[in-house]
């Protein structure tokens, strides 16, 4: 057995079902072992390494299991960096295996040699250069342990070709050896008691639930606690599904493009429990004016997130589920009828809405897809206006049904992530909402989707613009458009048909519903739905970057806005 075979066998023992990969010289021994080892792991051959990374990410978010990527050295590894960054920012477990030049050539600028170990350090939870063939099983086991425990994240293994080719004489049962790594932290009873005491006194309590809730499988604990304490719940973009968004206590997303009622709840609450969110700049606006009147508590598994953006009254380092269960045990149930009725008033006054007056909008189409799928689809998005409208109008009732690049904001993520999700959950409907900009960054993966006959629905919300940047240019840069006009896009339907997918063209309000139903009836191949939408809609509500949430703009402003100073 060689190192590559030991690697594949160890992956198999870790329960790996799929490897998303693209070959190359330095990775040939590993690709060879996929054949010679007789493994049951299925290799999904992609068309670009970035696609592989986002597929593994989508697979991980949709399944809860780490996604695995296999690429070659140099450019192969270089092309996964964006995917690593995306997974790292959103705490997604992923194992990326890279071929590398032979050891004696390292540092010699040999063919396709890149210093991947150093290049990727800032975008991984941890990485390895494997120097000893017999270390491979231990390192693989460590990589899975690191990727999936504590705050999850991507782990990269750089494996020189002479290491993967070398005879393996070690044990596949090699135990992990991570003496400096700790990931279990007992939840402080004192701190839980302090949070409970403040909550018990609160008149206007609010729960802010983030991605950490879903990672810790704490969504049922959120629901139990919210119902017991009659406390409304707002979520971050990645926290969608932490409480069913159709629940009476669900306020939807907060922040820059959050619902007006969620943002007003944040501004007015007197108690805020943040569980599993890192108080990202997209949700807090001006940190100095965030949630000013409230007692603030924060639960996070990562100590580096506590007091980072917002200094809180009580910070708990620990697992979200364990902490919420401890809180539930420490609290007496309460009713907050006045507060919830007050927020219901805001729901009626400032509902999420759109108009059909100017034609087919992205909101309309997303809303229709929500109804046609009964809200049950696994939804992947790309990045930009359509992402925010999807967050607003596609309510998520179940964890792991929402895949979106939040921290990194990676255009090109949505479509390959949906491919990964469809592999993870082959019998469930998967929808990718993408813009015409982002889709063109990774649409070459139509080949992967078609070859594997994935019944994906790729909905291109086509406004022939980079819409979010255009919106900022309209609002903050005197409507001077620069570098946002995408006129000249290819015919996405013809392109789809060229790959072997179905292409369906929606030209306006009149044919939207019938064409969507036609698309959703197709189950033997991917469908690309090219929807021509109103070109210049803007996403509201909007909190200008760096402004306090009280400065939320709910309807289009009549006058020009000042250039934002905070965040980007």
């Amino acid at each position, binding site marked *: 057995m060689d190192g590559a075979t030991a690697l594949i066998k160890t992956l198999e023992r870790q329960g790996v079902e799929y490897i998303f990969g693209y070959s190359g010289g330095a990775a040939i021994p590993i690709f060879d072992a996929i054949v010679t080892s007789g493994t049951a792991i299925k290799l999904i051959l992609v068309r670009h390494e970035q696609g592989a990374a986002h597929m593994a990410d989508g697979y991980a978010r949709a399944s809860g299991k780490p996604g695995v990527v296999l690429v070659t050295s140099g450019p192969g590894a270089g092309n996964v960096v964006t995917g690593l960054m995306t997974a790292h920012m959103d705490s997604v477990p992923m194992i990326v295996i890279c071929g590398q030049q032979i050891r004696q050539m390292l540092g010699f600028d040999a063919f396709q040699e890149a210093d991947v170990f150093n290049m990727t350090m800032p975008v991984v939870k941890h990485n390895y250069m494997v120097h000893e063939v017999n270390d491979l099983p231990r390192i693989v086991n460590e990589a899975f342990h690191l990727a999936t425990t504590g705050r999850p994240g991507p782990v990269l293994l750089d494996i020189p070709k002479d290491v993967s080719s070398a005879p393996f004489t070690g044990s596949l049962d090699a135990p992990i050896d991570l003496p400096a790594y700790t990931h279990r932290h007992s939840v402080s009873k004192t701190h839980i008691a302090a949070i409970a005491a403040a909550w018990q006194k609160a008149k206007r309590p609010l729960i802010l639930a983030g991605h950490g809730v879903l990672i810790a499988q704490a969504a049922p604990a959120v629901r139990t606690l919210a119902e017991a304490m009659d406390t409304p719940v707002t979520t971050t973009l990645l926290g969608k599904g932490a409480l069913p968004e159709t629940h009476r206590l669900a306020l939807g997303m907060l922040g820059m493009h959050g619902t007006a009622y969620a943002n007003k709840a944040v501004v007015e609450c007197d108690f805020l429990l943040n569980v599993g969110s890192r108080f990202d700049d997209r949700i807090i606006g001006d940190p100095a004016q965030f949630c000013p009147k409230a007692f603030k508590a924060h639960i996070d598994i990562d100590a*580096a997130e506590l007091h980072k953006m917002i200094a809180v009254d009580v910070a708990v380092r620990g697992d979200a589920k364990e902490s919420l269960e401890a809180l539930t045990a420490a609290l007496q149930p309460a009713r907050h009828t006045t507060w919830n009725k007050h927020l219901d008033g805001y729901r009626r006054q400032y509902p999420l809405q759109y108009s059909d007056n100017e034609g087919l909008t992205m909101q309309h189409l997303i809303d229709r897809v929500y109804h046609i799928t009964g809200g049950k689809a696994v939804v992947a998005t790309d990045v930009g206006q359509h992402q925010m409208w999807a967050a607003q109008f596609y309510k998520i009732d179940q964890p792991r049904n929402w895949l979106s690049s939040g921290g990194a904001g990676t255009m090109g993520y949505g479509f390959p992530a949906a491919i990964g999700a469809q592999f993870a959950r082959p019998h469930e409907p998967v929808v990718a909402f993408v813009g015409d900009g982002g889709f063109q960054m990774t649409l070459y993966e139509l080949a992967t989707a078609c070859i594997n006959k994935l019944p994906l629905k790729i909905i291109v919300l086509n406004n022939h613009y980079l819409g979010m940047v255009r919106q900022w240019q309209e609002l903050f840069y005197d409507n001077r458009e620069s570098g946002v006009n995408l006129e000249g896009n290819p015919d996405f339907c013809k392109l789809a048909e060229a790959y072997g997918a179905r292409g369906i063209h929606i030209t306006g309000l009149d044919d939207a519903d019938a064409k969507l139903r036609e698309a959703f009836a197709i189950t033997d191949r991917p469908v690309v739905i090219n929807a021509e939408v109103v070109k210049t809609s803007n996403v509201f509500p909007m909190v200008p970057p760096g402004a306090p949430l009280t400065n939320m703009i709910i309807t289009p402003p009549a006058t020009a806005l000042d250039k934002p100073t905070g965040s980007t």
Partner: protein
Amino acid sequence: MTTMLYAITLEVRDAPGVLVRVAQVFARRGCNISSVHVEHPAETPWSHMSITVQNVARIDQIHHQLEKLVDVHRVTINHHQDTSHE
């Protein structure tokens, strides 16, 4: 002008790349490292790293980000004001 000096000592694994990982925590903020010393004392499991930096913002955050590194076992930070240049 008053300068705040931070003396940071770390116990780390004796593994390739540890110094890079630690240095990146400072470099990404545009923070310059004034001095660094690394050695692995005999009969101890950890390498000892000593770093000094000046006037870095949010040292508490840096402390946590250093501790989060998988190869870092323990971090201690001492600070004092250097008024010798007044």
